[in-house]
C-alpha cells in the first residue's frame, strides 16, 4: 500500500516537472514569435509519424536509457554520478578501438566490444568511487574532473591512433562487423538508426531492476544510500559498496557510450562531451531513479530529440527547444521539494472536506449574487 502511494506521488511529481518544462518551452516559442501548438504538434509528429521515425526515437533513447540507469543506480547508493559523459566517452573509445583493430566475425567482435565498453566505463568510474570510499573526496567534483580528463584523452588518442581519412576531428568509420546495427533490424524499421543497443538496453533495465529489488547486493547498496551509518552498524561494508556502485554505474554509462558511438553513430567526434551523459541526470530524476521509470523517461526524451529536426524543418523554431525543455525539466525536478511540500499539505485535506468547502463557497457566492 505504501509503495503504491509512493509510486503515485513520484509519477505526479514527474508529470508536474514535464508539464512545467513544456510550458517553459511554449513560453520560449511564444517569445520568439512562434505558435507553440504548431511547434509541439510537429515535435511529436517528427518522433512518431512513421516506422523509421519510431526506430530513430528508440535509437536516440538507447544511450539515454543507459545514461539514466547509470545515474539512477549510483543515486540509489546515495552517490551522484555526473561523470556519465566521460564514462560514455571511454566506453565508446574502447568500443571503437576494438572495432577498428580486430577483424573478427561479428558475434565475437560485438561481444568483445560490449565487454570492453563495460570494463572501460567501470574502471573510469571506479576511480572516483575509490577516492570517495578511501579519502572521502566528493564524487561530484571527482566525476567532473574525470569527465574532462576523458574529454582530453579522446581528443588526443583518436587523432593519434584512429584518425579518419578526411577530418582530423573524427575517427575512421568502424567496419560493418563492429556496428551494433544489424540488417534485419534496420530493414524492419525501414532504414532507421535503430540497433541492437535497444535490446541491450531492455536487458540491462531488467538486470538493474533485478539487482536493486531482488538481490542482497541491491539491498546493501540501497541500505548504504538510505543511511550510511546504519548500514555500517548492520555489518555492511560501506566502502566496498560505494566503489561497487560507482563501478556498476560506470559500466552502464560505458555501454551506453558503445551504443552511441558504434550503434547510433559509426565514428567518434573529438572535442565533444556527449550531451546524453548530462541528459541522463534528467532521465534519472524524471524516472524517479527506478529502472522502468528511467526507460519511460528516456523514450520521452528520445522522442523530443528525434522530433526536433522535423519541427525545425516545418516551422521557424530552432531545434534547441528540445534541449530547453529537458533543461527546464531538470530545474523543476530539482525544485520538486516545493511541490512535495504542497503535496503533503494537499493530502492532509480530506477530499470530502475539500468538496464540502468548495460547495459552501459556491453557495455563499450564489447567495452573495442574489443579494
Amino acid at each position, binding site marked *: 500500500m505504501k509503495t503504491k502511494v509512493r509510486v503515485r506521488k513520484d509519477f505526479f511529481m514527474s508529470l508536474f516537472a514535464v508539464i512545467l518544462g513544456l510550458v517553459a518551452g511554449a513560453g*520560449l516559442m511564444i517569445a*520568439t514569435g512562434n505558435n507553440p501548438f504548431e511547434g509541439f504538434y510537429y515535435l511529436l509528429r517528427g518522433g512518431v509519424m512513421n516506422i523509421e521515425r519510431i526506430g530513430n526515437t528508440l535509437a536516440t533513447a538507447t544511450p539515454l536509457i543507459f545514461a539514466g540507469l547509470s545515474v539512477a543506480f549510483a543515486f540509489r547508493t546515495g552517490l*551522484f554520478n*555526473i561523470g556519465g559523459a566521460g564514462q560514455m566517452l571511454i566506453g565508446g573509445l574502447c568500443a571503437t578501438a576494438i572495432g577498428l583493430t580486430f577483424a573478427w566475425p561479428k558475434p565475437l567482435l560485438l561481444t568483445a566490444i560490449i565487454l570492453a565498453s563495460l570494463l572501460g566505463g567501470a574502471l573510469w568510474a571506479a576511480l572516483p568511487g575509490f*577516492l570517495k570510499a578511501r*579519502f*572521502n*573526496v*566528493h564524487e*561530484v*567534483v*571527482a566525476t*567532473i*574532473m*574525470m*569527465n*574532462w*580528463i576523458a*574529454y*582530453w*584523452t579522446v*581528443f*588526443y*588518442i583518436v587523432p593519434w591512433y584512429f584518425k579518419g581519412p578526411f577530418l582530423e576531428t573524427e575517427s575512421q568509420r568502424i567496419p560493418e562487423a563492429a556496428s551494433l546495427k544489424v540488417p534485419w533490424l534496420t530493414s524492419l524499421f525501414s532504414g532507421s538508426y535503430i540497433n541492437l543497443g535497444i535490446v541491450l538496453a531492455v536487458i540491462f533495465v531488467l538486470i538493474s531492476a533485478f539487482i536493486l529489488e531482488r538481490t542482497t547486493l541491491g539491498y546493501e547498496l540501497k541500505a548504504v544510500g538510505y543511511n550510511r551509518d546504519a548500514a555500517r552498524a548492520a555489518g555492511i561494508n560501506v566502502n566496498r559498496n560505494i566503489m561497487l556502485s560507482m563501478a556498476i554505474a560506470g559500466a552502464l554509462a560505458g555501454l551506453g557510450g558503445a551504443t552511441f558511438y558504434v550503434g547510433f553513430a559509426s565514428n567518434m567526434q573529438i572535442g565533444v*562531451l556527449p550531451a546524453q551523459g*548530462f541528459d541522463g*541526470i*534528467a532521465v534519472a*530524476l524524471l524516472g524517479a531513479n527506478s529502472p522502468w521509470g528511467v526507460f519511460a523517461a528516456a523514450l520521452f526524451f528520445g522522442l523530443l530529440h528525434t522530433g526536433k529536426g522535423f519541427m525545425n524543418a516545418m516551422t521557424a523554431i*530552432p531545434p*534547441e*527547444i528540445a*534541449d*530547453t525543455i*529537458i*533543461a*527546464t525539466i*531538470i*530545474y523543476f*525536478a*530539482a*525544485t*520538486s*521539494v*516545493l511541490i512535495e511540500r504542497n503535496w503533503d499539505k494537499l493530502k492532509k485535506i480530506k477530499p470530502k472536506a475539500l468538496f464540502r468547502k468548495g460547495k459552501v463557497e459556491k453557495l455563499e457566492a450564489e447567495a452573495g449574487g442574489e443579494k
Partner: protein
Amino acid sequence: MIDLVYQIFPYAIAFTIPLLITSLGGLYSERSGVVNIGLEGLMLMGMFVGAYTISQVESASPGMAVWYGLLAATVFGALFAVLHAFACVTLNADQVISGIAINMIASAVTVYLARFFTGSGNVQIIRGMSRLTIPVLSDIPVLGRLFFTHTYATTWLVLLILAVSTFVLFKTRFGLRLRACGEHPHAADSAGVNVYLMRYLAVIISGGCAGLGGAIFIVTLSGEYNGTAAGLGFLALAALIFGQWKPWGILAATFFFGFASTIANVSQVIPVLAQIPGIYLKAFPYVVTLIALVLSSKSSQAPKAAGEPYDKGKR
C-alpha cells in the same frame, strides 16, 4: 628560453583572467554555502550576451562597444544566477542538480536565441579588445616586458576586483557574515544575519563575475560566441578547489591552469614544447585537482556548510 616565455606570457595571462574572475565568482557563492556547478552555464550566458551586445552596438560606438558588452554580460550573468539562488536558497533544492540545470538551460537557451537572432547559431564580433602598453612601468627590465606590455585593460580590472574581493570577504563585516553563512549558517542566523539574503547576494555576485569572465574570453581570445564554454567554467571550478577556496590560492591556481592550457594550445608551433604530448598539459589541471582533493581530504578548507540547504527549523 626567455624569448619563449615572452612569447607565451601574454596568451597565458589572457587565458588566466577569464578563469580567475569566474573562479572568484565561485568563491563568493561557495563561501556563502551554495555550491555552484553552474559556473560553466553562467559563463556561457556572459559569452552570448557579451557577443550579441557588442555585435549590435559595434557600428554605432566602436570605441565603447566592448565595455557595453562586458557590462551587459555582467548584468545578465547576475540575473541568470537568480534562478540558481531561487532554487538553492528559497526552494532548498539540491544545489548540484540546480547547477547542472543552469548549465543545460544556458547552453540550450543561448543557442536557441543565437539561431533566432543570427540564423547560424554563432555570434561574431568584429573588433575585440585592443592591447595596450603601460608607459613607465613597461620599461622595468623583464617584469615590465612580462606584465606591462601588450596587456588588456580587463586584466587590470579583474586584478582590481580580486584585490577588492579579498578585502571585502576578509576585512569587512559583510564578508565575515557571508563566510559565516557558509561555515555555520545557524550560528550566523542566531547572530542576526539574514542567511537567505546573504546567499542570494553571493550567488548573484558569482553570476555577475562568471558572466564577466565569459565576456572577457570573447573580447580577448575567441572573438565569437559558438554555443559552448568548452569547459572553462569547470576549469574555474577546479581552480577554486585547487586554490582551496582562498583568493590568492585561486590566483595561483588559475595562472597555473592558464599557463598549462596555453602551452598545450601553442605546443604544435614551438619545437621545444612539441615534445610534451598535449594530453598531459590539457589533462593536468583536472588531475592535479583530483590529487589536491586527495591530499587535502584530511584538512579540507572547503566551507563547511557548502552544499547544504539552510533550513531554519533544523538545529
